[in-house]
């Protein structure tokens, strides 16, 4: 296992663990205001200090991890659930009108700056975690569709697919039984990268006030709230900022590490 993979796994599981533990335990109630205790710097009582309402930042970061992960996970899920079948279909019918329709539709969605459209979607349908999920999810569809189609196309040329075709299997069945398992590695790696982009997108949307609404903590909104107070309470911005960095870095390293680990060519080269 590479260094990337180990470090990536460690950082990602740290965040995941924080999110999971937050379901059963946080040091304080993340939503409990304690105004006389506001803007405390980190100390033994409040490990990450308190925010402008006196809420415990450590608890907020833990629950915020939950929000980030939930939004990004579901968004990537939407992208995979719709994108992968589309990509498989396009590859199976390469060159047909169906392939054209699917891929040009993908190009259309791909051409839009995703965060701008996400802002549009949440502005029209209202701010909130659900709309953020949908907005981020839509832009994951073409990513998965493309990567699936690209990988599937090369597979369709291979002899074992030919064998399957000769034995009378239809395109749909071949896609599900033979193509999909062979592109799964690729999808897992891409999913990890998209997951980290989803976390960033969620933070971005929350930062402009279009993500999860208060009192649900969100890293992006914590950053936005901290903006005018950075000069006298830097921990308000540093801590959610670091949380985002750790998560995104961890997921990217994990993605890189997984790619190296799962790719047989690289594995052979190493050995």
């Amino acid at each position, binding site marked *: 296992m590479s260094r990337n993979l180990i470090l990536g796994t460690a950082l990602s599981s740290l965040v995941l663990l924080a999110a999971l533990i937050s379901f059963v335990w946080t040091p304080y109630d993340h939503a409990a205001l304690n105004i006389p205790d506001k803007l405390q710097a980190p100390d033994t009582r409040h490990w990450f200090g308190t925010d402008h*309402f*006196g809420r415990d930042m450590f608890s907020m970061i833990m629950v915020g991890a939950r929000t980030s992960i939930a939004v990004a996970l579901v968004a990537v899920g939407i992208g995979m659930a719709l994108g992968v079948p589309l990509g498989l279909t396009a590859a199976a019918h390469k060159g047909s009108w169906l392939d054209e329709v699917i891929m040009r539709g993908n190009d259309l969605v791909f051409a839009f700056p995703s965060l701008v459209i996400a802002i549009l979607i949440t502005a029209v349908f209202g*701010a909130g975690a659900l709309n953020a999920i949908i907005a981020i999810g839509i832009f994951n569809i073409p990513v998965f569709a493309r990567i699936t189609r690209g990988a599937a196309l090369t597979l369709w040329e291979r002899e074992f697919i030919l064998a399957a075709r000769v034995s009378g299997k239809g395109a749909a069945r071949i896609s599900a039984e033979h193509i999909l398992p062979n592109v799964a590695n690729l999808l897992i790696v891409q999913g990890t990268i998209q997951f980290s982009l989803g976390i960033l997108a969620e933070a971005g949307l929350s930062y402009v006030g279009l993500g999860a609404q208060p*009192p649900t903590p969100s890293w992006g909104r914590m950053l936005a709230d901290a903006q005018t107070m950075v*000069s006298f309470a830097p921990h308000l911005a540093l801590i959610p900022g670091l949380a985002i960095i750790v998560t995104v870095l961890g997921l990217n390293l994990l993605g890189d590490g997984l790619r190296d680990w799962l790719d047989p060519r690289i594995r052979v080269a190493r050995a």
Partner: protein
Amino acid sequence: MRMRSVRTLASALALGASLLASQALAKSDITIAMQLEPPHLDPTSAAAQAIDSVVYTNIFEGLTRFMGDGSVAPGLAESWEISEDGTVYTFKLRDGVTFHDGTVMDAEDVKFSLDRARAEDSANAQKALFAGIETVEVVDPLTVRLTLAEPNGNLLFNLAWGDAVIVAPESIENIKTNPVGTGAFTFGNWVQGDSITLNRNPEYWGDQPVLETATFKFISDPTAAFAAMMAEDVDVFDNFPAPENLPQFEADPRFQVLVGSTEGETILSTNNQQPPFDDIRVRQALAHAIDRQAIIDGAMFGYGTPIGTHFAPHNPAYVDLTGNSAHDPEKAKALLAEAGLPEGFQTTLHLPPPSYARRGGEIIAAQLAEVGITAEIINVEWAQWLESVFKGKDFGLTIVSHTEPMDIGIYARPDYYFQYDSSDFQAVMAMLNSTTDPAERARLMGEAQRLISNDYVNGYLFQLAKLGVARAGVRGLWENAPTAAIDLSAISWDE
């Protein structure tokens, strides 16, 4: 020897030149930042406070005017006489006043302005100010007579509003983009989205202002506001949007902080017609669930005065009714149970952009949650707020600061967005409007304050503070905001 005298001469010249330069540098321009940009520049056809901030007394003047301390002083009317029965006001206008386009300001212009404001199809945002006026007559070019249906103790106050300024028929057409008034400053230039520049009016009838030009700059983002002020890109921030930054300005010798009062009653506005808020016990429960001091400390970093009714605490007629709605979650729970809602209920809390609303809303939602009320926070922009909350009345709760002076009269309008309909209150207001005796007026105002407090119409939070920040050398700024105005004629720089 010769060489030396030349050198002496040269240095003397240099000294002289630098003296001249320093004199020329005695600043005569100023850049004043505001958070909101006016939609246009006609104060007689819109409610936007930003319009008045730019044009009031600077470009446009009324018959009377507000001073920085809130008192009403003569404006374009030099003096006035009131008939015995209080129904006829005869205004003597100042002689030799011209509009910025050179036309003369006379009684015809006053009649035009007032008739336009109170006309059936008038777009004036405060038509109620002119309600009792029956006729406006031109007696001679410098005398105007107003006849009222019944005595109105508020008339001189009403005429001081930005909505009652004197405009000219010659220039009314383009007033929104090219305002032509009688004030000490003329309209210069408007860079949309950035700034408006005004220039000194050399033909002004009164004392010449010290400033030659003034630029109003619009900075909506609190972080950008802080940066602009710290970099001294702007000289004054009329009402600084981030109270949390004030200690930093206070600690910095380059700046002065002016904390004053505004007419902004910040309230948890409640839809009185929407169940369960149509039940007074529920509204009372709301009032007891709220901890005002926590909101002032948490949302405004301590700036603001608690209020118990819709009235400015600095007004002599103010009655302190905060005890009527003291923070008492147990009582709130009991009241909810009594109203048949022991488990609480769900509602919406619409929050416009200012931090008093957004931060205050988060605090209030948490406080309401303690008594079992779930208030779903919905952040809205101002345009959305005006459309859905103010006009559409589609809300449960909202937080807003009502910044018009002496605006308790809105409670006598059953169609106003919080929809309070009380014949008792309407009767008191009608009585107040026709009373001129100051003692009796104060008593009626007290009565009105008690009625809305006892009916728990809205959650009364705090009086918004005016948080002015300026560079140390600026003099003559209004500390308080009796109306939205930035009176440029009083502003100067220290030598």
